[in-house]
């Protein structure tokens, strides 16, 4: 117990009832709920001082621009980036990874280069690389998992050679909960001059992250998984890597000059922010970070670990239930994938939902990993700061009903 229960009052959705039962929201890995302070920040901004940014000399536009740029500073400080201009606002982690794959990879990868990913990447950190590999002639290669669901670092180091141009790795698996040792991986990758791309979509919301010690060249994450709104995410990049990257989208705001037949790009980060950005979403993103920091990222990580440990223990007692992911809470986040006997995860999700328990069922946008695990799908429960042991208890109780219905155990 880590004493964050009082925070639940800040999240209106958690007062919902589903089928007459209080909601137990266990799908924060897909998207988190939002505290009132985030909703109010956005609402108030629309009501008081909304206007388009960067282009106006009038008060509302200046205020809007200031709030938008202040949000950039807020995001930068959250990950300890030395300069706000190292933060690019994007639609989300997926957009950011596409920008990197196409904008950096598209101009730097050569036939024969290798892009080294892991077998547990989310499609967002796989499909863009497949696309750019097809275009450039680079090849994909994969770091396998150990039987303990961790990255096989020995194989990784074997595979690392001068042909490896990119190492792309998730900061935390959205299926297994596995947290690979990024600094170690990054250091090895740097040794062969590879670009290190970290998909922080799951990591950044749940653990303190400091880009100055992480070792990555690029780090991406989405606001909606960390108490913020949909429609925005961030890409952090090392200045020299950002300089190497070509813009992926053209349009207003991202240019220095436009002639009829050619254009020159604006300074970084605006070069990568074509068109009207998600202005109000940036304000909400900043408010979400304020909230997270008030609670404290260390606290949040400890809370996740506490719940995860409790849940792993309780789930271990459910007959015929299999968990896919590292044992224990060391090097693992608050994401638990499981199956129950021959009950299909989709059926499980429906049954749990009838008990107010919201879990995800499916391939979790990680089909190659599903194949590796030899399951078509899993059910997944994931935790965040507003979850409690009562949520875990409700999950376990509902699994009992599922077992009864399907005659398991």
């Amino acid at each position, binding site marked *: 117990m880590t004493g964050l229960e009082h925070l639940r009052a800040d999240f209106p959705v958690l007062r919902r009832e589903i089928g007459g039962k209080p909601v137990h929201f266990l799908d924060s890995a897909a998207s988190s709920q939002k505290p009132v302070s985030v909703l109010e920040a956005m609402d108030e901004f629309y009501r008081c001082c909304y206007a388009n940014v960067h282009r106006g000399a009038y008060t509302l536009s200046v205020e809007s621009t200031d709030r938008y740029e202040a949000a950039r500073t807020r995001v930068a400080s959250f990950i300890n980036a030395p300069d706000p201009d190292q933060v690019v606002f994007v639609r989300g982690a997926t957009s950011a990874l596409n920008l990197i794959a196409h904008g950096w990879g598209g101009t730097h990868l050569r036939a024969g280069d290798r892009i080294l990913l892991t077998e547990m990447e989310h499609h967002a950190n796989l499909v863009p690389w497949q696309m750019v590999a097809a275009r450039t002639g680079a090849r994909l290669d994969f770091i396998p998992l150990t039987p303990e669901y961790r990255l096989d670092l020995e194989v990784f180091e074997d595979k690392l050679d001068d042909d490896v141009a990119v190492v792309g790795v998730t900061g935390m698996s959205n299926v297994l909960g596995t947290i690979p040792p990024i600094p170690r991986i990054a250091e090895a990758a740097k040794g062969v001059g590879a670009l290190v791309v970290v998909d922080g979509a799951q990591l950044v919301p749940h653990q303190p992250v400091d880009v100055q010690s992480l070792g990555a060249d690029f780090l991406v994450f989405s606001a909606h998984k960390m108490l913020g709104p949909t429609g925005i995410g961030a890409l952090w990049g090392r200045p020299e890597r950002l300089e190497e990257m070509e813009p992926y989208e053209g349009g207003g705001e991202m240019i220095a000059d436009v002639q009829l037949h050619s254009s020159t790009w604006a300074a970084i980060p605006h070069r990568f922010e074509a068109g009207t950005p998600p202005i109000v979403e940036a304000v909400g993103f900043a408010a979400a970070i304020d909230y997270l920091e008030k609670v404290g990222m260390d606290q949040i990580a400890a809370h996740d670990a506490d719940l995860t440990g409790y849940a792993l223990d309780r789930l271990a007692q459910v007959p015929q239930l299999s968990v896919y992911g590292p044992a224990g809470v060391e090097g693992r986040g608050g994401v638990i994938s499981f199956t129950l006997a*021959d*009950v*299909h*995860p*989709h*059926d499980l999700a*429906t*049954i749990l939902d*009838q008990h107010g328990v919201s879990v995800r*069922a*499916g*391939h979790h946008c990680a*089909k190659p990993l*599903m194949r590796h695990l030899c399951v*078509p*799908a899993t059910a997944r429960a994931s935790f965040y700061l507003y979850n409690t042991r009562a949520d875990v208890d409700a999950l376990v109780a509902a699994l009992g*009903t599922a077992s009864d*219905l*399907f*005659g398991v155990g």
Partner: protein
Amino acid sequence: MSLEELYREVILDHYRNPRHRKPLDRADAHAEGVNPLCGDEVTVELTVADGTITDVAAIGQGCSISQSSASMMTDAVLGKRIEEVRELIHRFKAMMDIDREVDLGLDPERPGAVLGDLEALQGVRRYPVRIKCANLPWTTLQEALDQLSDS
């Protein structure tokens, strides 16, 4: 409505003991269906003689709803004439259409009217997100039939 009405015995029986799950040696039509959102898959194979389904297979993986629907479907269409099968598809989809007040058409005088075991899937109507699961084999069957008429 209780979960027991969704997960009726007969559904679980078809899920655990699917009928006609062996690929056909020789199929006149073969269609594959997938629900990309949940990953459910069904492959339907048919052999046809004189406008009648003389053999059928449904092979797949997925939740109890999609797989039992597939299994019941094979029972329901085997030996039926193609027009009857089309009528059956129509009736089944009507049963799954939450926007319609359905006459389940249980009139045994009408060809293809009797849904039989398939009626057990009525409970799915109350779980809109699962309707696609129930429909998947039928949509795939329809594709297989369309292949026959194309050729």
